[in-house]
């Protein structure tokens, strides 16, 4: 049992923290968010150059053989600076699907150039009725000659406007919520029949509503096995949850740092408000919450590759529950302790709060994951 970083990991940590420090000052981020894309190609090129895009992929897949620990190091730093570049949809989700389910040909055609920084991905799985049930899939993929025709609507697809390839969960068999009969497809984002409605999200990212109208996809577009895509997809989402938790830990630490600084300097009634015991104890609870979030994220980081599927799922859901609880407490407390300034667009605090709020929902609410954890843990 060893919970310390290796020298290589320490170097990665220093590198990404330097990037955030130098390239992601809050006002810089505001400008990046206001660009058409909502993120900077120069930054993405740097990610590729520094090897961050291939960090967690095996050497065989053209990566650098890192794992979730390295991914968590990057994501935590991204969270601390509210980095806007689409690492999560492109590398963690799209790249993850290819790494765990892609054919040699798909890896060569899509994963390699993604690692090189030439390709962007989006993953379409949310539907208006589906909430957090990954098996609730109404989008259909009908056999069509040698291939398939996809039809239906997917919602809140992050990075769709910038994506070259969109990964879609579609129903090839079974009823709307059957676990069997779901297939993952990789379709060209420019394919005929795809229409998008793009919009910014509350936390300054970009997403789209994507409609598929008889979009044809060849048999070679299937990622993993036909009808058995759910396990693959759920596994990738569970890994993405751990990465997201690491991002949230970065957000919380940054927020606590800002709040602590604020209550040390902000004066009322002639003294810094940090002298008031009620705020002191609340600040202590903020730190405790962030520590617990970090501990659960560490646990999930180290267990997400466990041989036992139940252990992996429990790890992801347990961490998501903790991140939700801690993120809400830290975020709401930061705003409250900042007083009026905390509810303005001017300070960074409200932007961290908004990101933590969206993280709370992304990949399933804490309530959803508490139920999932409970069902996994209490089964006789």
């Amino acid at each position, binding site marked *: 049992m060893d919970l310390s970083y290796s020298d290589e990991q320490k170097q990665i940590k220093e590198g990404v923290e330097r990037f955030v420090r130098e390239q992601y000052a809050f006002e810089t981020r505001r400008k990046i968010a206001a660009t058409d894309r909502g993120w900077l190609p120069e930054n993405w090129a740097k990610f590729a150059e520094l090897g961050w895009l291939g960090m967690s992929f095996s050497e065989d897949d053209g990566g650098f053989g890192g794992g979730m620990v390295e991914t968590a190091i990057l994501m935590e730093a991204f969270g601390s600076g509210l980095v806007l570049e689409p690492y999560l949809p492109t590398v963690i989700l799209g790249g993850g699907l290819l790494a765990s389910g892609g054919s040699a040909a798909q890896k060569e055609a899509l994963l390699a150039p993604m690692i090189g920084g030439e390709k962007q991905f989006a993953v379409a799985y949310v539907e208006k009725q589906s909430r*957090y049930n990954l098996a609730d899939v109404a989008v259909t993929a009908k056999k069509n000659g040698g291939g398939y025709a996809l039809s239906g609507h997917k*919602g809140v697809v992050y990075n769709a406007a910038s994506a070259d390839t969109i990964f879609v969960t579609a129903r090839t068999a079974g009823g709307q919520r059957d676990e069997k009969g779901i297939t993952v497809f990789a379709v060209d984002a420019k394919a005929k029949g795809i229409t998008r409605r793009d*919009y910014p999200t509350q936390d300054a990212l970009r*997403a789209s509503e994507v409609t598929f109208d008889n979009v044809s996809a060849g048999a070679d577009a299937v990622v993993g096995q036909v009808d058995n895509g759910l396990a693959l997809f759920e596994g990738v989402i569970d890994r993405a949850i751990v990465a997201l938790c690491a991002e949230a830990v970065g957000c919380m630490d940054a927020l606590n740092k800002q709040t602590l600084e604020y209550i040390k300097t902000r004066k*009322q009634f002639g003294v810094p408000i940090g002298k008031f015991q009620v705020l002191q104890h609340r600040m202590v609870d903020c730190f405790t919450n962030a520590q617990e979030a970090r501990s659960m994220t560490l646990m999930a980081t180290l267990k997400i590759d466990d041989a036992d599927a139940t252990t992996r799922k429990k790890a992801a859901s347990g961490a998501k529950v903790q991140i939700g609880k801690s993120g809400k407490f830290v975020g709401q407390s930061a705003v409250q302790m900042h*007083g009026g300034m905390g509810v*303005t667009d001017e300070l960074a605090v*409200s932007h961290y709060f908004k990101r933590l709020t969206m993280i709370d929902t992304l990949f399933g609410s804490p*309530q959803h994951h508490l139920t999932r954890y409970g069902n996994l843990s209490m089964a006789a």
Partner: protein
Amino acid sequence: MDLAFTPQDIAFRDEVKAFVKANLPQDIADKVAHGKHLVRDDHMRWQQALGRQGWLVYTWPKKHGGPGWTVTQRYIFENVCADMNAPGIIPFGSKMVGPVIYTFGNDEQKARFLPGIRESSVWWCQGYSEPGSGSDLASLRTRAVREGDHYVVNGSKTWNTMGHWADWIFCLVRTDASAKPQEGISFLLIDMKTPGITVKPIIMADGGHEVNEVFFDNVKVPVENLVGKEGEGWTYAKFLLANERLGIAAVPQSKRGVDTLKQIARNETADGKPLIEDQDFRNKLADLEIQVTALEYTELRALSAMAAGGAPGPEVSFLKIRGSEIQQRISELAVEAVGYYAMPYHPALLWHGANEEPIGPAYAHVAAPRYFNARKTTIYGGSNEIQRNVISKMVLGL
């Protein structure tokens, strides 16, 4: 002890319902029902309708042109208005400066200002907080220096709500820099058109513009605009804040908020069933509804004590604490209810009433902005930490 309304009360409720039905423009009711933001004209149309009926200043005594309603009648009026999606009454004139003027102002001021408040022909705003003063109101630094028959005002105010729509502002200013913080403060009425006043928007976390900073650069204010005595503004300010705290529980609004949540939960699905049938979410709704009921009966007890002749004591501070916590909880559960569709940010629809198809259900895109915005309710009007200090000192004697 009896909850039942008297026949007179019931007749009164029907009268109010009939009035709202006949006088509340449908387009305004729709905006309120869908949580859309109102523009100045929306507020004015409704408030002027109430004004013509003599009901806008429904908390005022008869002799100042109010209806002189009983506590029960006020309760009925507020609930009927909320149930029928009437906009909340902007408090700065009718609930804040009005009572200050008729309680502490001179006859000339009453004659000059009260009619415009009763009719809502004049829009008032508040000049209390200052950059850096926060909950420590008495630390204000805006100066008013007497020069002949004018005060010359210099300084700035912040968290000024809807000042960009206002005709007049009531301000706390320092007329004696040498006195102790809570002394040397005076209460001035200032025409927003006076040269030297500039209004700078503050953008909120939800992207909206509802508050401002107001800057005063050698603004000349006639001495007759001083309310009461010079140096006693702090007394009037506390009087005003006490009135503010009472309404701030916002019980009728929270009751409507819970009903809206139930509607959303009937529309949303989880695993193919309506969300309202989800055990966990149902528990949260039930718990929230019980919290609102507890707050309502706490307020009723306070009102009934007032009816028996008491004034609102410091205990009303906890109506503010719980009322604000409940408003936040409602907004929080709405975000939970709409799931992924809380994420799209739709400013055109949210702020500019653009005629666009919303992304996701119409109720979804407002959920997160309202949650972000509602964080202010535990901060303004004296943060909840301050409110607890007040109760601890004034009620518990700690």
